[in-house]
């Protein structure tokens, strides 16, 4: 495992990109893109996080095994989020959590 030394130039370039990302995401927050606001905010965050992982954390130059570990973490997080949200998105029978409580008259007696 000969180690790869990332040059400070790259570090600074990444840093500047991250700064730019931060600026853009703050700017975008004030624009109205409808539902896309969330997508944009999280998209930029993911872009930034990826840069940090790849360069600051050297994942780009790491052994395969490390890269696999990273992929796994993202994958398992995705399982948790996706399957749970799928349940919430496809519920039919429960009247939503905010629904007018028709039968609350009964509940309160």
């Amino acid at each position: 495992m000969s180690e790869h030394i990332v040059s400070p130039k790259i570090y600074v370039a990444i840093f500047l990109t991250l700064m730019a990302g931060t600026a853009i995401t703050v700017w975008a927050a004030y624009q109205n893109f409808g539902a896309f606001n969330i997508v944009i905010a999280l998209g930029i965050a993911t872009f930034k996080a990826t840069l940090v992982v790849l360069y600051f954390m050297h994942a780009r130059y790491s052994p395969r095994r490390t890269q696999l570990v990273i992929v796994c973490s993202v994958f398992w997080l995705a399982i948790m989020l996706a399957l749970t949200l799928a349940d919430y998105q496809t519920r039919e029978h429960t009247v939503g959590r905010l629904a007018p409580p028709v039968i609350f008259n009964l509940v309160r007696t």
Partner: protein
Amino acid sequence: MQSQLPLYPEQASNFAPQVDNLMLFITLICLFFGVAITAAIVIFFFKFHRKQPNAVGVPILGDMRLETAWLVIPLLLAMAMFGWGAVVYVDYRHAPQDTLDIYVIGKQWMWKAQQPSGLREINELHVPVGRNVRLIMASEDVIHDFFVPAFRVKMDVVPGHYNTMWFRPTKPGRYHFFCSQYCGTNHALMGGWVTVMEPSEYAAWLSGSSGQGDPVVAGEKLFVERACSTCHSPDGTGRAPSLNGLYGSQVSLADGTTVVADDAYIRESILQPNAKIVARYQPLMPTYQGQLTEEQILALIAYIKSLQSQPAPASGK
């Protein structure tokens, strides 16, 4: 009707035979695998028992065809179980259009139900045979679960959500229902009876005309039907004071005062139980306001008056 050791509860709803058939199907498949594997182990065990202390076995590393077979065949059988189970479940989760809707509320530790006519019951549920019944359920506190083994159905009752379940009773009778989601101290006591009635009887019951004749007899019947008896046991050991010898006696209250137990007091105890709390008891009793006709209240009072002969209980008097 059933033997000492029955293997399944009575079948009293449309789902019961379906679930039992499913059970039989899966049991057969599993029996097959269970018996086959156990038999193989026993046979191999004896047939290939070590003959000399130093003997080793024949090295067999594996077999692709066998591996494939026992990957694929169980998978196919599993899919059959899944498919059949899914059909029953989807049916269960989608109530038909023409249901009789009954509201059910679970709270620690009792069940309240309200019939479409507005009539209310506690720890009891009356339904007509042959009608599709849908329960719309909510909880006041923690998660409960409404479970009728004879119907083979259950559904959690979740605070903040409204869950529904449906079934079609197929056989008149009285069946146990339980709370099947652990909900605290008296989880095991949070049950009652579902009464499945012929439609005409049900209609009569709804109109309250069942309590004709002697008010004491009617009152006694109500006392059981309305679950008074689940709390008020004659010997005063339950959660509530015994009502034996109550009428006309001095009752000491939690606030230190005493009252004479007359008709008005008993009436108030039934309709506004929290107005006067008996000493040493918790204000557990639910209100029956709006659930009893005046006639029924009178019948209950008449019944409580009749309980003079038995010895007076020690508590609260």
